[in-house]
């Protein structure tokens, strides 16, 4: 058995090693660094299945009072590791684009840092899902955010990327300020930062729950920014479109999953207050409507995926309103698979033609493999049975029907209809439209394996979800 914090330490050490190699071994092929990172992450992933449980929350002390290794956190550590592995694979495909941004220097300039930075993000995500103390949540969230500042504006010669980096920096700093301010209010009202002791403090009638509620509203603003919930979603389309595509994928999966897991942990003590649920209810409703309606007219696939990520935040928020942790977690897993799948195909196709939807015209002729993978990704995002996306929606709506959230259900059904429209637009482009180019698109072996894995996993989870549900049982 391994102590849980060793996993994060291993990832951090791996990241530093790669930075050192990048600095001192200048002659090697930099793609080797990516392979080394992937190998290291796979080893950590395997190790994460043999982690010793932490003491229970009530008698945790010292380190364990702000760090937990419960089932949920281990599961999401694995989630973060898997995401990072796939993002690294995409980065290898993305290397040629990166080169164009570092003109004048060697052909592989920048690739080393590009590979190393996600490892620090990954460590941050892994700390974040284990954090049960507001201070620790803040620190690990900053570790994630700071590494994203660099990653988003990595291809710095592209003005769109710079714009994206700037927007993310300003708005993210603002949301951090909200988070700190909220934590201060909560601490002031209850005298606690540990979430478990906070529950007890809030149950105490002497506590000023009004002040604590004000605090949680500020915290919700900050977390709403992370998960891209309306009305804190303004940054999403521009940043998603401008950022290097693997980073966009990472942002939309890793950042969102961590945001939701923190949201659930943070909300747990506050769910007893009657005002909390309506707050999230309103957020969910707005997010569903805005994300889906705004996605309808999009013509750029990256932008479409940005709005779709807002839309999926809406479905996830339905799960948060019903406070069904397993439904949210399963949806996140499904979302991971189908989003990474779509981005993996997008990266390869975008290098050949571009990232407009019309650039996908006739893809079925040029590369049946990529077109089929994209088809699975899109129908899963839309929620077609026998894909993971459908079961995710199924569990979410199951919880909503159970709690009789009529308004959310009605809006949800309509937005699912919208979803079919805009996701199938991509399918239409690939299969119905005829493109100008007809030359085949090559896919390297590693990407082929990664994409096939994602396709198979999407279908497999859509038919046999029990392993994930078992892993999530507490």
């Amino acid at each position, binding site marked *: 058995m391994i102590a849980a914090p060793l996993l994060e330490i291993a990832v951090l050490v791996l990241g530093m090693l790669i930075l050192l190699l990048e600095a001192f071994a200048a002659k090697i092929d930099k793609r080797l660094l990516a392979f080394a990172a992937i190998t290291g992450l796979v080893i950590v992933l395997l190790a994460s299945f043999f982690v010793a449980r932490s003491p229970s929350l009530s008698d945790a002390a010292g380190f364990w009072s702000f760090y937990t290794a419960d089932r949920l956190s281990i599961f999401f550590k694995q989630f973060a590791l898997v995401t990072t592995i796939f993002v690294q694979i995409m980065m290898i495909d993305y290397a040629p684009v990166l080169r164009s941004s570092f003109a004048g220097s060697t052909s592989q300039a920048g690739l080393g840092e590009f590979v190393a930075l996600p490892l620090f993000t990954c460590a941050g995500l892994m700390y974040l899902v284990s954090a049960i103390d507001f201070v620790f949540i803040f620190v690990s969230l900053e570790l994630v955010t700071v590494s994203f500042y660099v990653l988003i504006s990595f291809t710095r010669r592209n003005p769109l990327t710079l714009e994206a980096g700037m927007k993310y920096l300003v708005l993210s700093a603002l949301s951090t300020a909200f988070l700190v301010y909220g934590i201060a209010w909560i601490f002031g009202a209850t005298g606690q930062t540990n979430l478990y002791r906070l529950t007890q403090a809030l149950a105490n009638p002497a506590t000023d729950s009004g002040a604590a509620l004000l605090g949680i509203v500020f915290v919700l603003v900050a977390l709403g920014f992370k998960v891209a919930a309306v009305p804190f979603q303004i940054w999403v389309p521009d940043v998603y479109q401008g950022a290097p595509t693997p980073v966009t994928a990472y942002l939309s999966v890793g950042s969102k999953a961590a945001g939701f897991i923190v949201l659930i942990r943070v909300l747990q003590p506050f769910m007893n207050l009657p005002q909390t649920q309506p707050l999230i209810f309103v957020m969910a409703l707005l997010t569903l409507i805005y994300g889906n309606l705004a996605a309808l007219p999009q013509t750029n696939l990256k932008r479409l995926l940005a709005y779709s990520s807002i839309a999926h935040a809406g479905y996830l928020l339905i799960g948060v309103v019903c406070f069904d942790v397993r439904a949210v977690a399963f949806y996140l897993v499904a979302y991971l698979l189908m989003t990474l799948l779509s981005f993996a195909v997008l990266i390869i196709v975008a290098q050949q033609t571009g990232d407009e939807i019309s650039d996908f015209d006739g893809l*079925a002729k040029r590369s049946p493999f990529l077109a089929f993978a994209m088809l699975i990704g899109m*129908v899963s995002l*839309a929620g*077609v*049975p*026998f894909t993971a996306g*459908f079961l995710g929606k*199924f569990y979410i*709506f*199951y919880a909503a*029907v*159970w709690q009789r959230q009529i308004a959310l*259900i009605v809006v949800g*059904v*309509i937005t*699912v*209809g919208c979803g*079919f*429209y805009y996701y*199938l637009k991509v*399918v*239409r482009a690939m*299969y*119905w439209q005829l493109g100008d180019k007809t030359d085949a698109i090559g896919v390297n072996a590693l990407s082929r394996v990664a994409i096939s894995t994602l396709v198979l996993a999407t279908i497999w989870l859509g*038919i*046999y*979800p*029990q392993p994930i*549900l078992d892993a999530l049982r507490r």
Partner: protein
Amino acid sequence: MVLFVIFCPIVAAASVMLGAPARKTALAASILTFAAALFLFASSEYGQADFQHVTSFPISPEWRLSFTTGIDGLSVVMVLLAAIVTLAAVWFAGAIERYENAFYACLLLISGGAIGAFASIDLFFFYAFHELALIPTFLLIGIWGSGNRVAAAWKITIYLAIGSFILLLGLILLYQSFPLGSRSFDIRVLRTAASMGQITADAQRHVYLLLLIGFGILISLFPFHTWAPEAYAAAPAPAAMLHAGVLKKIGLYGLLRLAVPMLPEGARYWTTLLVVLLLGNIIYVGLVTVAQKRLDWMLGYSSVMHMGYIFLGIASFSVLGLTGAVVLIFAHGLSIALLFGVAGELRGRTGTLAFDELGGLARVMPFAGLAFGFGVFAAIGLPGFANFAGEIMIFFGAFRNGWEMGRFHIFQIATVLALWGVVISTLYMLRAYRKTFMGNIREQWEKLPDLRPALRVPVTLLVTALLCYGFFPQSLVPLVTPMFRSYLSTEKSHIPNMQSYSHGAVRRPYAVRLNQENAPQGRGYSIR
């Protein structure tokens, strides 16, 4: 055997996608499926209300979800229908210009999905297979359609996607409205629990309405029918055959399988609404059909209209009416497939289906005229075709509902109006036949070739099945009556105060009367 029937088309679809010769594989798979379905049909026991050939693979014990398949009398009729129409559709398809493999894979997927839905005992997989069957139709219309194909494909996609999500909500609500102990995805368990009165009347009303709308959109119940004619007009002929012939029937099957046995109180509550809507199907859509100027639109509307009769049988909630609905489902599936098949061949030759530009085609295409004529007469409900058997059972079943001397009940009014629907359908069907095949032929059509000789096989198959069950409906009837009888009788014995029901089926021992008065003296028919 049931698994073979489901997965034969799906495996064939996969192998076609992987590069097997498209048409040959599809044809072989559909012939095998047809043979297996015929075997199941022949070997199913009459008078048996339970599922047979049951196989089960547990998926999620926690949710009591398992992949369970099996057939009973109702399923086997539907599976046979699906197998026959698939074979005919694949045979009619012929050579396809672009993406031939994908085209045949889509056809086979529809078939596999539909058969899977008919043979699933598990609620979840029923829904999932039904969706699996729907998806390829969007592609078929979008890629290989004609006319305004893209708009039609979008319309049907959005309509049916919303419909199936409403259906999904209804199914979730149905699952949740059972108490924890009897909550299961197994339809048999649910049905037993329902017959013990474990769903409250309130829940039944909500679930029934959701199911009615969810399935209703797929069945093209008035006023949710507007996607249908446009989609059928744009769809390639085999897709229209499968969609109108088989896919729509999944909705009807779902109502018969879920709503009728489990939600009698919900059905009673919404009867008036349903009767009004189905009259909208028969009368309003019927009149709209008369006004059509193109053959494909006319056929699309007529298939919407005929759904009204089947709804009348379901709404009547009597053994006779429900049985008639099943017979008509079977018959309508075959006849509309025949009509769409021939119409597709005509469009392939002439490039237009507007009545003004056609005429006299029977002279150059005698075989097509004959085949289409059979379809027309079947659709009208001429005695001798299975449609007639179904319609007459529905009319009798509906008319006797709530019959009291001196009082006129809504069902009597509905039946009388529905009978006028027969006149309407005669009007538009014969007019279409006259304008297409009779009269003076235009010069440009004088060189048109007749249907290729190979098409005699599917046409003969469809016509034979129609005539066969038209003359001997008793080979279908005893397969389904025991089930409906047990549905209606358990309801009677478990729900107190049955006098409050307005339906004759509940109030009187209908089953016995059916046996004495209407029972055809076929094989295996036992009087209980």
